[in-house]
């Protein structure tokens, strides 16, 4: 196995209106099988993906929002949310779902890996990634 890389998934699209959000989620789940360090960054309309209380039967589409809550079990350790993107949309951290993470080997656990960050930190996260997958 080659060295472990920092994979970052950058999500900038709202769910449902286009296929980007769902496709990103599919790729994250596939990538989880490869034992890499995986982080997600939600910015611009991507922050809408994490809004809790999504209820889709009325538009006859699959509600894939519950899947985000399982990502901690698939090796995703960081889910960053850009603060300015939330503010521009009248949203706060309280509007977002929470995602728990637990390491089976070390018993380390984090109640909520969804973290609201400022632009400088987001820039750092992007610059620090070995690979960025854009959706």
């Amino acid at each position: 196995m080659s060295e472990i890389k920092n994979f970052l998934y950058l999500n900038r699209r709202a769910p449902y209106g286009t296929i980007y959000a769902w496709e990103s989620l599919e790729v994250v789940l596939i990538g989880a099988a490869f034992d890499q360090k995986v982080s997600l960054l939600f910015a611009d309309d991507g922050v809408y993906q994490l809004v809790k209380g999504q209820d889709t039967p009325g538009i006859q589409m699959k509600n894939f929002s519950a899947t985000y809550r399982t990502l901690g079990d698939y090796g995703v350790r960081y889910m960053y949310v850009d603060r300015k993107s939330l503010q521009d949309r009248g949203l706060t951290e309280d509007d977002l779902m929470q995602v728990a993470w637990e390491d089976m080997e070390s018993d380390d656990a984090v109640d909520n890996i969804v973290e609201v960050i400022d632009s400088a930190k987001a820039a750092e996260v992007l610059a620090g990634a070995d690979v960025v997958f854009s959706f």
Partner: protein
Amino acid sequence: MSDLHTVNKSPLEKNALDSCLRFATAGSSILLIEDGVYAAVKGTAVEGAIRGALGKHKVYALGPDLKARGMKDDRVIDGVKLVDYAGFVDLVETHGKVQAWL
């Protein structure tokens, strides 16, 4: 009969709403659908544009699209009317043509 304008893009990603509001004549109606419904939510960067539009247009938003996106009714800007799919059909019937801003 006045026209019905539909906007299906997020106002924070595309300029479909801006163009609609710029070109829609007073008295015509605007229906927000799909990702366009985010414009109906209070506290966004485009709330002022919607409030301004309410002086010249009836503004509607498709309820099932808001619900799918986790946006409860109490987050909708006062004056924006919620419609369901049957209401969408009624709007089409009671207006002239439908102009889509994609």
